[in-house]
């Protein structure tokens, strides 16, 4: 068979009627490096999961010439076990009835050498950084000798050097006849390495390109028309508002190790960095759910670590990183969700009770200002799309103008229109004097909205860039820790 993978008329409908894929056709040739591109919500991950056999399609066909290995976006390893245990799981070498650990370690070393993926067989996964964990996961898939390797957003958590190494591996695999299907929305990778490119938008294939196509053509196909313009940035004076000194928080690879940061009222400070360099620990420490050493001051007053209620009272609001696990009670209505965080304060609180009318008023205002598409104010949060849920959370954070707004991955996994609206609201908040701290893995997003960008590398600041100095090359170097000052 000429193709490692052939997909025809693929349809996938989720419960609730959401049509993630609407008649998709795709072919990956043997030994080819094929990129699958699209915006968030286009259906790329769904297609990848079906192609890998991890998800069942609602209609259409999938043909493979052999097995497909799958490296998902978020690691699916057994963290407390060692690398060799993870790699051989399911195909364990035996000696009689016993598990042959020595042979397993040897097998990992051999694979590691053969594919150029350095992995320490005895390391526990939980001690490894993102790149090393990904290598283990790739090795695990390669151990099963697939004809096709499917990788979902493989470079999101990698530094540029690690990215280059990954693609070197994929090219080596291609030379041995193992095809790769890379799902990504990072066009720089695509431009450099893909032989063919398929672009998805809203569940359909809208374009196919050969390698070497201008990235702008690919980007246009992904977005499919004009991106809504963002709100204007109003030039304004800023004033001191929030300061972090000597922050030490979290443990392991993603810890913050001595960070100083200032966010002034009326500016957006973007925190850029490859995933796993301390963003989550920083966000959780500022939100008050992670204990830390060092100081954080809001308007000169020091904040106590680990007290979310006090921070909310002081005027800090958060758009959390994970809307479903940290932001919304999915079973609850919009009104009730929007009351979360402010339930102890007027106007929502009246004596011992919750003022339902005030809650509905707030809900009405947020839904309107943030264009939240929902059947009614009493609809459950679970009935909303990702973009609308995110808008709800942003609306909640901005319902009463906060002093400091912490936005973590504010447009992660949502469609282009919702993303543009949210970014506009962030800029408007900044114009109105809110101090905005935006942590994002999306450098382009920060380029659009931030006044200053601070790069986070290994838990500390590794470079600060003013808006007139926003340039991919310099920032890329800082992200990789090459420009540590």
């Amino acid at each position, binding site marked *: 068979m000429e193709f490692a993978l052939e997909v025809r008329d693929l349809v996938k409908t989720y419960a609730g009627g959401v049509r993630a894929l609407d008649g998709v056709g795709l072919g990956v040739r043997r030994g080819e490096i094929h990129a699958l591109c699209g915006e968030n919500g286009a259906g790329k991950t769904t297609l990848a999961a079906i192609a890998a056999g991890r998800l069942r399609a609602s209609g259409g066909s999938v043909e493979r010439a052999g097995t497909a290995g799958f490296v998902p976006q978020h690691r699916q390893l057994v963290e407390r076990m060692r690398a060799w245990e993870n790699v051989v799981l399911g195909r364990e070498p035996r000696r009689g009835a016993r598990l042959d650990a020595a042979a397993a370690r040897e097998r990992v070393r051999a694979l590691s050498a053969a594919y150029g993926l350095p992995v320490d067989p005895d390391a526990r996964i939980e001690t490894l950084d993102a790149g090393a964990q990904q290598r283990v996961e790739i090795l695990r898939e390669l151990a099963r000798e697939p004809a096709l390797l499917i990788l979902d957003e493989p470079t999101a958590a990698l530094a540029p050097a690690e990215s280059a190494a990954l693609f070197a591996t994929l090219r080596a695999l291609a030379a041995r006849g193992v095809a790769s299907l890379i799902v990504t929305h990072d066009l720089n990778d695509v431009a450099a390495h893909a032989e063919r490119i398929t672009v998805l938008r809203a569940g359909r294939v809208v374009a196919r390109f050969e390698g070497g196509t201008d990235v702008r053509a690919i980007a246009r196909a992904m977005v499919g028309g004009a991106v809504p313009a963002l709100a204007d940035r109003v030039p304004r004076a800023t004033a001191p508002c929030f300061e972090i000194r000597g922050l030490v928080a979290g443990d392991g690879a993603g810890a913050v190790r001595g960070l100083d940061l200032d966010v002034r009222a009326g500016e957006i400070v973007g925190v850029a960095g490859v995933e796993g360099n301390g963003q989550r620990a920083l966000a959780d420490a500022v939100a008050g759910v992670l204990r830390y050493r060092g100081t954080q001051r809001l308007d000169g007053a020091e904040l106590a670590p680990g007290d979310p*209620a006090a921070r909310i009272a002081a005027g800090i609001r958060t758009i959390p990183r994970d809307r479903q696990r940290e932001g919304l009670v999915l079973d609850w209505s919009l009104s009730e969700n929007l009351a*979360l*965080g402010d339930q102890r304060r007027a106007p929502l609180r009246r004596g*011992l009770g919750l003022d339902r009318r005030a809650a509905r008023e707030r809900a009405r205002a947020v839904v309107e200002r943030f264009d939240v598409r929902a059947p009614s104010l009493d609809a459950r949060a679970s009935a909303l799309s990702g973009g609308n849920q995110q808008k709800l959370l942003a609306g909640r954070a901005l319902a009463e103008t906060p002093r400091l707004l912490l936005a973590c991955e504010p447009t992660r996994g949502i469609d282009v229109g919702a993303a543009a609206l949210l970014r506009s609201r962030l800029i408007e908040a900044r114009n109105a004097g809110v101090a905005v701290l935006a942590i994002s893995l999306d450098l382009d997003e920060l380029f659009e909205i931030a006044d200053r960008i601070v790069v986070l590398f290994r838990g500390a600041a590794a470079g600060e860039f003013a808006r007139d100095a926003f340039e991919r090359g310099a920032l890329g170097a800082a992200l990789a820790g090459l420009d540590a000052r």
Partner: protein
Amino acid sequence: MKRGAWLPALVLVLAGAGATLLAGANPLNAAVELLRGALGGPQPLAETLVQTASLLFPALAVAFALRAGFFNIGADGQAVAGGLAAGLAGAAWPGAGTAALLAALAAGTLAGGAWGALAGALRGRFGGSEVIATLMLNVLAGLLASYLLGGPLRAPGATGPETAALPESAWLPVLLPDSRLTLALPLALALAVALQFVLTRTVYGFELRAAGKAPEVARRAGVDLGSLAFGTLTLSGAIAGLGGATIVTGILHRFDPALSPGYGFIGIAVALVGGLEPLGVVLAAFAFAILQSGSLTMQAFAHVPKDVVALLEGLAILTLASRRALVARAPAR
């Protein structure tokens, strides 16, 4: 809760029928005898209502805690603690009048609350599983009562671990003459209404429900999960303790360690069938009380061992566990 409730109901009906057939009896006859024993006349009905009250306290305790995401399996132990305190306070209260009764009920509520607070502290302060804690405290309550009443607090002339008999001034007033139906039932109903109000109308109830559904979301919204664990399990224990006190002051008129025979576990079934809503729990308690109080008649006249009821209660819990995860419980150690 109503939607899709037919499958568990079917399972229960089939199991009940199957068990009665195994016993060599006629399922329809068994059902008739059961209902006759529970509802066939003012006296049986009164007795069924007595059982309703006895089940309602532990069931409300369990339901309330579960709404917050905490599993209180120790309602029996809390009832024992409450009943013991009520028996001691009521017997020892100087003077006459309803003060003795009020003292007994108050003592029972506080003691049950204290017993619940132990589990609450372990969960709130150390993150230790309240499931294990309340289970262990169940047994410890019985052991403590046995020790105290066998030795230091032994009632004069008692042959076993029981307190002195309560003076009549400390008895719960009877609602229906010649029955055991007391003020316990209206008290339980009022409690259910109060809990419903707290859950739906107060800020505390709002935070509690948020913690029960999505603990991480609640935490980031400023809810102190440790304090919530402590407070909720204390309240839950207090409810169960009050229940124990009503059994001591209303039915037994003295403390007996066997005052709550498995009601804590049946209470789980009642809470689940009632959908964890206080008013639903009231209806469920009545339904289970029918099963409990009718079972003796069923055993006597239809010759089906009354233990079939326990069997069905267990099945009810099991089938209702299989609905989308009841509460997104915060992981305890």
